[in-house]
């Protein structure tokens, strides 16, 4: 099942994708065209949002990092999220702003001291994030610092949450990012340094993961700087295509 979180008739509802994702079925049974839906980030309010840096072998090499170290984990606030077909501000001085397409694992059951072997049983579903970075704002304190990674609406999320059972192996999914139709990132989740199961085992080793918590699992190589007006699509096999556009900001 694929589910979207949308605004409809003044309320926030979860709707099920039907008719080959061209329509959404609302909780009251009503159907609306997917093109008419106002997509919100498919997130549980209050959920913790974890993100990974340098979690693809090729992207690490691209950025000049070598040895395998503990996962580079950081947290994000919900102010960063924006829904499918939403707008992301592109600051006038953010000339090194680039999209990062990422597989997102959503926790389904509490996880504490979970072994790698059983970790995937704690995943409810998967979605897609585009975790934009703006390299001009990087500083070497708690890097990647919040001025880079916690800006409003710079993490498009969605369009759907796909049930984990429908995905099977999360480490064998193709990832593509297109800007104005041109491919700028191409990879596979097979190249993650730490896979979804390892990340859940690592995090649950020192904290309790709760239903709704999300793990943005990092991005493959391909650093492409974007301009205001660009149309960005992040696609992950079996999950969908997350669309976003960049708008000029001060």
């Amino acid at each position, binding site marked *: 099942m694929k589910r979207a979180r949308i605004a409809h008739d003044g309320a926030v509802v979860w709707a099920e994708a039907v008719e080959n994702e061209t329509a959404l079925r609302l909780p009251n049974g009503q159907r609306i065209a997917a093109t008419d839906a106002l997509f919100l980030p498919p997130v549980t309010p209050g959920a913790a949002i974890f993100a990974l840096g340098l979690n693809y072998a090729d992207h690490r090499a691209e950025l000049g990092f070598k040895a395998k170290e503990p996962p580079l984990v950081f947290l994000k606030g*919900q102010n960063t999220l924006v829904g499918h077909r939403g707008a992301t501000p592109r600051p006038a001085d953010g000339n090194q702003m680039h999209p990062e397409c990422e597989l997102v694992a959503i926790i389904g059951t509490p996880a504490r001291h979970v072994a790698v072997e059983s970790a995937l049983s704690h995943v409810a579903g998967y979605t897609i994030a585009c975790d934009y970075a703006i390299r001009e704002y990087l500083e070497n304190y708690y890097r990647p610092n919040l001025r880079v990674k916690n800006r409003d609406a710079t993490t498009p999320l969605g369009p759907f949450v796909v049930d984990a059972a429908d995905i099977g192996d999360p480490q064998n999914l193709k990832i593509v990012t297109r800007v104005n139709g041109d491919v700028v990132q191409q990879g596979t989740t097979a190249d993650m340094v730490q896979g979804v199961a390892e990340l859940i085992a690592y995090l649950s080793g020192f904290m309790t993961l709760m239903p709704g918590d999300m793990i943005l699992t990092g991005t493959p190589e391909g650093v492409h700087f974007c301009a205001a007006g660009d149309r960005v699509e992040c696609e992950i096999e079996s999950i969908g295509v997350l669309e976003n556009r960049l708008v000029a900001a001060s």
Partner: protein
Amino acid sequence: MIAGTVYGVVLNDRTERETLAGTFGAPPYKAPPKAPVLYIKSRNTFNVSGAPVALPSGLREVEAAATLGLLFGRDAAKCDAASALGYVAAACLALDVCEPQENYYRPAVRQRCRDGFLPLGEFAPFDPALLNGEIVTAVDGKEAHRWNLSRLARDAATLIADITDFMTLSAGDLLLIGLPHDAPRVKAGQRVTVTSAELPALETVFVREDAI
């Protein structure tokens, strides 16, 4: 208890900045910090005054840094220092617990975000006079630390202005306005009390995880 996100800031203690000034130019930092250096306390850390803080096995002692939390009543975006405090609706004492850190290069999620590592006192209506106060930490009934918020490198209003220059502090978010670099270290079995003149006191006891 907290509907939004809890943000904290390190390197906002003027005395710590003076101590570390000579290291900021060297690797891995290579330059002094410009923007406020923020972190997030994830929801699993939220804890209430009166409840214990569990120390995992292998963690012999932790830093217990008492600070002031400001709860936002309205979304604050790109506000200036003169208007910043108008977005704050309530305040509480907070005890930010952290595994002692070697440096500030990488986000300290494992060190800062253990379950229960953020005991919070009861909220009171925000009064700007709170920002001129002293926060006292007692360990096992004996004063162990005292700091005046005049030590902050960025005072609360400037901090809010500089943060909201690049992100919104939303209604329901809590901002911890800074940590004293000389916070006491505590072990399992010790009781910590945080007090200030105007806010409800905060109390917790540190226990071994397997004791709960």
